[in-house]
């Protein structure tokens, strides 16, 4: 079970049309080397799940700017002019969803839950087309789990087995996405021998991680 690989090997099984989760919050904690590689290889028609579409020159925003994304599920697109442009010309489908709901939807997929019961979005356009449920006299939306074929995430340190530690606010969606994709690829600033991380302070247990590449742009 050797997980450490080159960037090329790590993304070898990515294909056009796949659903891809990309870690990062306005680009902080985004796997830039893996994004470089996807752009270079021109993997397209992607459905992307991410917190926000960042900036045209940073993080997941670069996939949008390179027109590799056909649909994005996200909470915020205001910082990426490309997202808005492609949404208006019809080349990019944008599904906007509350940030906390996306976090719980990803976690739900990772945790084997059938959905998320949340009051967020009730009485707004977010409610449209969704199942609702009333519990203890309060109305809730039933939001379905969000799962991906592949998650590309960024960590500060990975050991050889794939135990991960994140750095400060670069953690954000990365640990959640690690739980919710069939193939999880980590870009780590630093790779250390097994046993170098304190088991009491691992943020993501290695069993979620499939491939590890050594990064460099972040942190």
């Amino acid at each position, binding site marked *: 079970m050797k997980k450490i690989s080159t960037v090329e090997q790590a993304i070898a099984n990515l294909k056009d049309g796949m659903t891809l989760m990309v870690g990062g*919050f*306005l*680009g*902080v*904690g985004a796997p830039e080397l893996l994004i470089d590689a996807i752009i270079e290889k021109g993997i397209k028609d992607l459905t992307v799940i991410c*917190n*926000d579409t960042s900036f045209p020159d940073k993080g997941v925003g670069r996939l949008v700017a390179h027109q590799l994304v056909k649909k994005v599920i*996200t*909470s*915020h*697109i*205001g*910082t990426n002019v490309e997202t*808005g442009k492609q*949404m208006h010309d019809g080349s990019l489908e*944008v599904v*906007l*969803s*509350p*940030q*906390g*709901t996306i*976090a*719980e939807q*990803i*976690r739900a997929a990772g945790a084997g839950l059938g959905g998320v019961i*949340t*009051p*967020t*979005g*009730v*009485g*707004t*356009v*977010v409610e449209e087309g969704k199942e609702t449920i009333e519990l203890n006299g309060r109305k809730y939306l039933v939001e379905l789990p969000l799962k991906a074929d592949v998650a590309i995430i960024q960590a*500060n340190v990975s050991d050889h087995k794939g135990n991960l530690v*994140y*750095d*400060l*606010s*670069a*953690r*954000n*969606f*990365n*640990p*959640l996405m690690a739980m919710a994709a069939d193939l999880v690829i980590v870009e780590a600033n630093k790779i250390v021998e097994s046993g170098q991380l304190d088991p009491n302070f691992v*943020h993501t247990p290695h069993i979620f991680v499939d491939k590890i590449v050594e990064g460099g742009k*972040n*942190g």
Partner: protein
Amino acid sequence: MDKATIRATIANRVAKEFKDGDLVNLGIGLPTEVANYVPEDIDVTFQSENGFIGMGPAPEAGQEINNLTNAGGLPVTIFKDAAFFDSAMSFAIIRGGHLDCTVLGALQVDAKGNLANWMIPGKKVPGMGGAMDLVTGAKKVIVAMEHTAKGDVKILSECNLPLTAVGVVDLIVTEMAVMKVTDKGLKLIEINPEFTVEEVQAVTGAQLIVEDDLIDMK
């Protein structure tokens, strides 16, 4: 009032709502400035929805840390008792009722406590980010904004822009007044002595109920 005075007036007044021990989330823009006016004798913890509590002010130039930004992507500092977590925990805090107060801007707010602050159809669709979660989950929701948008009325009897949430706003603080959302409608509880009640009402699209003991803005 010039822009700087307007912002200072609003931020200063909002900060008076906090109590010792409060956990507060400040939206980007004007609400961020509220942090500068917290009374020194109370201990308020600021949350940043990208994943930590214990947020401090912006760093001095050259002291920025790449992986330490606020939810607007700007460099910040942390206090020594800060704690970082992932987005699920961040929104568990927000949605689970652990946030004592959230302060946000608004495109529109109305007498029923409805809030619209995330899109203008056909014009501007930035997305809701964490706003829907914040106003649905926080114990107290304060809208902090200029009373009008270049003269256009923002405080209405009913919002006509897509809502962020229904019936969630508790308090509206502008440079002219402080208004409380009540079952009966918007109650004017404090007024900036530079304005009269009539002047405030004239730029407000909802009928204001004037508090019997209306006082000057704190």
